[in-house]
C-alpha cells in the first residue's frame, strides 16, 4: 500500500503506524513518549498529524494511528504547530528542571505566561521507564495515582522486592529524571541500595548482584556475564581477530 506523507509517496504495510512509516521514509515527526523498542503510547501528543481520509480531515496521534487504507498525511500545519507549541509549554511547566524540555521550550519559541511551574521537577510522565522495567521482566515501578497527582513509583514508595537495580529505567529516561547514584561499591535507586559486582577482568563495578542472579536464572551460562560491558567488547573483538 502506498500513502502520501508531506507530498511524498511512502510504501507501507497494513497496520503500520504513521510514525513508523514516516521514520522509515526519514520524515521527521517530533515525539517525546515514543521509543523504538515499544509500541506507541499516545501520551505526549506531540506527534499529532493531520490525516485526510476520503476527503475528511482529522487530527490523530501518529504513534498509535494504524494505516488501514490509503490516506494523505500532513505532519505540519499552522494548527498542528500551534498545538505542539502549547503541548511543549504544558510539558515544560510540568517538568521545568529538565534540560530537554528547557531547550524545546526555547526552540518552539514558547512565550512566558502566567501559568505556574512545578519547580524542580524533571519527570514528564512519558512512562518509558515503566515500559522498560516491564520489558526487563521486573515491573517494579508503575504509574500511580491519576491526573496531576500521577507519578512513577514503586508500590507504596517503598524499596521494591522486584527491583533488580538494573538501571534500565534511568537509562531510557529522556529527561534524566530518575536518580541513580553509585558510591563505594553500592548503587542506590528507587529507595533501595544494591551491592555492585566487580568485573572479573578489569575489577571495575558494573552490575548488581540481583541483576546477575536474575540473568543466570533466565538462561544458559554466559561466559561473558561476569565481565563489564567494555571488557566484553574487547573480548569479542579479540575473538573476531582470531577468526579472521
Amino acid at each position, binding site marked *: 500500500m502506498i500513502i502520501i506523507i508531506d507530498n511524498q509517496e511512502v510504501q507501507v504495510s497494513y497496520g503500520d503506524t504513521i510514525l513508523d512509516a514516516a521514520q522509515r521514509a526519514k520524515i521527521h515527526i517530533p515525539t517525546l513518549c515514543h521509543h523504538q523498542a515499544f509500541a506507541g503510547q499516545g*501520551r505526549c*501528543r506531540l506527534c*499529532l498529524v493531520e490525516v485526510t481520509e476520503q476527503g475528511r480531515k482529522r487530527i490523530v496521534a501518529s504513534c*498509535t494511528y494504524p494505516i488501514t487504507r490509503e490516506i494523505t498525511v500532513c505532519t505540519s500545519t499552522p494548527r498542528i504547530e500551534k498545538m505542539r507549541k502549547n*503541548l511543549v509549554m*504544558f510539558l515544560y511547566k*510540568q517538568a521545568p528542571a529538565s534540560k530537554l524540555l528547557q531547550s524545546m521550550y526555547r526552540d518552539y519559541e514558547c512565550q512566558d505566561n502566567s501559568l*505556574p511551574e512545578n519547580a524542580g521537577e524533571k519527570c514528564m510522565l512519558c512512562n518509558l521507564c515503566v515500559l522498560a522495567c516491564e520489558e526487563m521482566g521486573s515491573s517494579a515501578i508503575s504509574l500511580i495515582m*491519576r*491526573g496531576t497527582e500521577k507519578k512513577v513509583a514503586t508500590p507504596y514508595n517503598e524499596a521494591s522486592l522486584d527491583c533488580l537495580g538494573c538501571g534500565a529505567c534511568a537509562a531510557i529516561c529522556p529527561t534524566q529524571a530518575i536518580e541513580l547514584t553509585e558510591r563505594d561499591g553500592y548503587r542506590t535507586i528507587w529507595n533501595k541500595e544494591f551491592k555492585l559486582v566487580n568485573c572479573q577482568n578489569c575489577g571495575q563495578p558494573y552490575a548488581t548482584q540481583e541483576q546477575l542472579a536474575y540473568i543466570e536464572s533466565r538462561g544458559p551460562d554466559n561466559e561473558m556475564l561476569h565481565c563489564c560491558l567494555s571488557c566484553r567488547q574487547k573480548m569479542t573483538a579479540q575473538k573476531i581477530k582470531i577468526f579472521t
Partner: protein
Amino acid sequence: MRNKQNEVRQVMVCCGTGCQASGSKQVLEAFITQLQSLEGVEAVASTKATGCNGWCEQGPLVKILPDDITYCLVKVKDVPVIIEKTILGHGIVERLLYRDPISKNRVQSHHQLDFYRKQKKVALRNIGEIDPASIADYMARDGYQAFKKAITMSAQEIVDEIINSGLRGRGGGGYPTGLKWKSCLQQEEKQRYIICNGDEGDPGAFMDRSIMEGDPHTVIEGMLICAMALGASKGYIYVRDEYDLAVKNLTRAIQDAREHSLLGDKIMGREFSFHIELVRGGGAFVCGEETALLASIEGNVGEPWDKYYFPSEKGLWGYPTVINNVETWANIPVIIGQGAQDFAQIGTENSKGTKVFSLVGKVINTGLVEVPMGTTLREIIFEIGGGIINGRKFKAVQTGGPSGGCIPAELLDLKLDFDSLHEAGSMMGSGGLIVMDERTCMVEVARYYLNFLAGESCGKCVPCREGIRHMLEILTRICEGRGRTGDLELLEELAETVQEASLCGLGKTAPNPVLSTIRYFRAEYLDHIENRFCPAGICRNLTRFSIDPEKCTGCGLCKKNCPANCISGERKEVHTIDPQGCIKCGSCIDTCKFNAVLVQQEVGL
C-alpha cells in the same frame, strides 16, 4: 365490570435508593408484618418492594393498586392507618396525598401530576411497577418476550431492526447502536464480547442506577438479544462500585435468569450459551470511557487508548466487543418486541426514542424524567419540573454532566436531541440536567466542573492532564479576584488545544463548561476580570452585600438567619450589614422576601 372493591390490594413500596434513605425498608417491613396478622390476608392484600419511581423528593412513596393511590412521605406510624382506611376500608388517607403547591389540592395518584403525565416511559417502563427481585414480575410485563421473538429472527434481521430503530448510544457519544452491532458482526473473529457500561459517574446523574436497581432483567434481556445475534458467549456488566443495591439486584437477576435457562449453557435447550459476569468498577470517573473500562476489566489501570480501532473491531482482550450503556440496553427489548417502526416514531429526525434525564438543581420537582427526544428545555424545566424554586429567575441549565455545557435562557426552546445540544456547545452526555437560577455565578460553575475534571483526568495524555490544570488555575484566580487582562483569550487558546489534542472523550469535552460559559456569559467573566465584581454574589472576594433601605421592611428574617451575627436593626426598621463581620455566605439574600439585599462590588480591590 369487575368490582375493584373485591380485588386483592397491591401495596407497592418504593425501595429505590432515595426512598430507602428516607426509611422505606422499615415501612415495607411494617406492611408485611401488620398485613400478615390479618386473617385471610391472601385475599386482601399483597406487598411488594419496587424500584425507584423517580420522585425521590416525596419518598418514601407507597402506591396502592388497583385503586391507583399514591401516598407520599409515608412513615412507619402511617402504616396502620393505611391498612385500616385504604386496604380494608377502601377509603383514602387524605393527609398522605401529595398537595399541589399551586392549586393546594390533594392529588390522588401520581399519574395525575404534570411531573408524570408529560413523560413517556420506555427505558423506565417497568420501574416502580415491578419488584426488581422478581423475574415473574418482569415476565408478567412481557419480559423476555422480545428475546423469544429474537430467537425466530436471523442475526442480520436483529441488527437491521436496531439500525432501523435509529437508536443512538445513551451513554454520551450518541453513536448509532445498530452500526456498532453491525461492525462487530462483520468481524472475522468469532470470539466476541458484550458489555454493559454501568459506570455512571456524572455528578447528579442516576438514570443508569435506577434502571439497574429497579429493572435489572431488562438490561440482561437487551444483552442476551445482542449476544444471540452476534454469537457472543460472554458478557460483562461493569457497575460503579458505589452502587450496592444495583449489584445486589443484578446478581439476583442473573441468578434467576440462569435458573430459568435464560442465561448459562444451552439457553432454552438451544446451541447457544451466554454467561454474564458482574464487574465492580475501579472507582474512577474515567472508567466510564469505554476503552478505559475495557482496560479496567482486563485488570489494568483504567487508562483509555486511542480509538482508531473501535471496540467493535478490537475490544476486550483484542476481540470484537459491543459495549453499550445501561439505558441503551433497556431500550433493546422494546425495539425488538414492538418493532423498530414503533420506536422510530418517537423523537426527532436524527435522534429517535426517548431519553431519561436526571432533573436536579434549583427546580421544584427533581427526579428522573423520561421524555421523547425533541422535547424542549422549557417543557422539561417548567412543565415537568414545575419551574424554579422560590420563584427566582432561570439563568442556565447545565446538560451532559461535568464535561457538558451551560445553556442560557435564550435557548430554553431548544429541542433536546444529540445534535441540537452539540450545536449549542454542550452535549447530551448521559442526560444530566442541572438547573441554575440567578444566584449562580457562571465563572464559578466553570471552575467547579474543571476542578472535578482535574481530579478525574487519568493523567495519561498531556493536554488533558496539564491543560485542565492550567485552565483551572486561571478560573480560580478569576473567581478570587486575581484575573488578568488576556485571561479569557488564554483560556480559549488552551481550551482549543485540550479539545483537539486530548486522547479520549474526557479530555476532548473537558473545555465545554469553560467555552460554553464564555460563549453565553462573556459579560459575567469580564465583570469578574475588569470590574472585580461577581454579579451573582457568589465569589466572596468580589462581593459585598448591603441592604436597600427603600425595600427593607425590617422583618428581621435576614438578621435571624445570619450565621455571622453581623446584621443589625430594630424590628420594622431598616437593617444594615456590617461589612467587617460579613462572611458573604449569601444567607441574607436567599432568605429576604422583599429583594432588599443588594449585591455590590467589593470595595478596596
